């Protein structure tokens, strides 16, 4: 079992004829993901890799192929529009990889999506993978292994680090979800933790956070009160200077809020095992499971 994506996922790729869109669409197909359609305005009628039909609009792609998830690689200036296009086409799961979307654009997207039933993952994220079944995103597929640990993270490479530690200790993953490093995103740590808690295929959870905002604290509070599965967490950015944006648009301590220290305290208070360093993520979970 898993959450959000599995072998029945029928994937659309928006921006499939672009350089990175094409590269990663191909790599997802090689992993075994069922890529059923692509969208590039003005290129409708073409075939990607001689087999995947390209459409001008997400609406046509949905109608012709029944795609139920989409992966967006459209450049930042047009990405918010592409998210709304996918939502308008009724696609249930929208995964936006694009980095650098203006915050005010995302603010409008989020407000516009309130009345829709589609779920947005990202933006500025590595995507989502259910090992052995479906990879949607830019993560290296081979480091993953099917199993029962759910991973949720704001950071791409830190997720790979956690997955690598788990896989090399013999622990596979149910699903790994990159929720992205932007201040306004579609799906929060808490949303994903709740899904893992309800998923019979997930037995334990690693939550990876970083400075900025209060999403980790909110998830920790809920975990402390409701989560029935062991959780370990790591928070990056304890050494980051306040007021500076650390690579991710959302990774900033402002007005004394969003510090690593504050997050770590909230996590400890919720009974979550804290990884002292990024090298300790899998071991922290194993310690928590042994408790």
């Amino acid at each position: 079992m898993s959450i959000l994506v599995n072998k029945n996922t029928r994937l659309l790729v928006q921006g499939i004829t672009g350089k990175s869109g094409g590269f990663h669409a191909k790599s997802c197909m090689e992993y075994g993901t069922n890529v059923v359609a692509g969208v590039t305005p003005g290129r409708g009628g073409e075939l990607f890799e001689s087999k995947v039909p390209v459409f001008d609009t997400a609406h046509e792609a949905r109608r012709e192929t029944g795609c139920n998830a989409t992966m967006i690689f459209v450049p930042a200036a047009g990405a918010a529009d592409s998210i709304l296009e996918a939502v308008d086409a009724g696609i249930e799961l929208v995964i936006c990889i694009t980095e650098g979307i203006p915050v005010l654009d995302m603010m409008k997207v989020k407000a516009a999506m309130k009345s829709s039933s589609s779920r947005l993952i990202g933006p500025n994220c590595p995507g989502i993978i259910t090992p052995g079944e479906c990879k949607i995103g830019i993560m290296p597929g081979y480091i993953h292994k099917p199993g029962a640990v759910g991973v949720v993270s704001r950071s791409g490479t830190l997720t790979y680090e956690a997955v690598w530690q788990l896989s090399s200790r013999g622990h596979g993953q149910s699903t790994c979800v990159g929720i992205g490093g932007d201040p306004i995103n579609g799906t929060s740590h808490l949303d994903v933790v709740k899904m893992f808690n309800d998923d019979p295929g997930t037995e334990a959870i690693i939550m990876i956070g970083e400075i900025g905002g209060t999403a980790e604290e909110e998830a920790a509070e809920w975990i402390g009160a409701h989560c029935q599965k062991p959780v370990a967490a790591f928070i990056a950015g304890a050494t980051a200077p306040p007021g500076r944006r650390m690579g991710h648009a959302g990774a900033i301590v402002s007005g004394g809020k969003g510090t690593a220290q504050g997050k770590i305290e909230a996590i400890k208070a919720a009974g979550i095992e804290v990884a002292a360093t990024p090298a300790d993520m899998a071991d922290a979970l194993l310690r928590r499971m042994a408790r």
Partner: protein
Amino acid sequence: MNIHEYQAKELLDLFQVANSPGGVASTPEEAEKIAASLQTSDLVIKAQVHAGGRGKGTFKNGFRGGVHLCATPAEIRDTASRMLGETLVTHQTGEAGRVVRKVLVAKSVAIRKELYFAILIDRAVSGPVIVASTEGGVNIEEVAEHTPEKIFHLAVDPLLGLQAHQARKLARLLEIPSDRVKEASALFENLYKLFIARDCSMVEVNPLVITTEGSILALDAKFNFDDNALYRHPDVQAYRDIEEEDPREVEASKFNLSYIGLDGNIACLVNGAGLAMATMDIIKHHGGEPANFLDVGGGATEQQVTEAFKILVADSRVKAILVNIFGGIMKCDVIAQGIINAVKAVNLPVPLVVRLEGTNVEAGRKLLAESGLQLTPATDIADAARKVVAAAA
């Protein structure tokens, strides 16, 4: 990105947000001319640098204070001549100080009451929030701690924008007299328009003042802009003053590298923002001090890696370098080749510890091993941190 006070004033003027009249000068003569045009004996002159604490700062020529009240244009000219081209040291500039290239000359207003007004993006509600207080001119975080009842929060619907009735409500919450409510609400609405039109992430007016004559003015405004949206605001981009930035960061920005200079002696080069932060953390955990944050990104080229390396070794404080790569899109052989090219180009002066994992890792390790470079390989992130801390000690 930060901007100067005079640039903030230009934006306020452009959006008809009432503020104190004045102008910016690069020479004492210009300063005198602006002062004369203001036709008042209540004048103020302010040194323009990107640092707080200007009023209490000292120039390296011995002149005290980066902000002065003056009575005549001649006095303004004289004060300007002591500031322009001189180095101002404040508690925020460090010992090196900042060279003052421009001064702002404005009418000094008599203040009856100081208020606080800010617009920012609240992540928790995914929309703009206005924070206002009857207690202005002081540190708002202290107000929040001691008298939170004096701070008002108002969420703005992202799709509707700030409504006129909300602006009036804020004016009354701030105890603005009835006959000035329209004036105040117009200021708030215009400031909100500016916030949206220029993709700000924060506008902070502190203080917003009621003058003795009853006018409502945005006396000092600080702006933060969303870096992701700068591409659609050439006027804001033009406000960038690289003289005010860390030269290491200026160099990095030329090659689209995400770099932040710190004060330690262990340089790091990492792919991915989260891993780059975590690498700094683990260096500290093992007793070292990071010299920088550097994320070369997911799709860095050999050339970017080479340029990144040049920036790291140009920093004389650096005693050791840690390369920590988890290759996803980024291929380890590309990183390895970048390192080899860079070391050949710069003659590596300090120990180098390299930890590679992920895509094409074997090819990357082979390239490094066959290059004959003096470097210390590490098996994992903890091993790498221990080795680099030992090397820098």
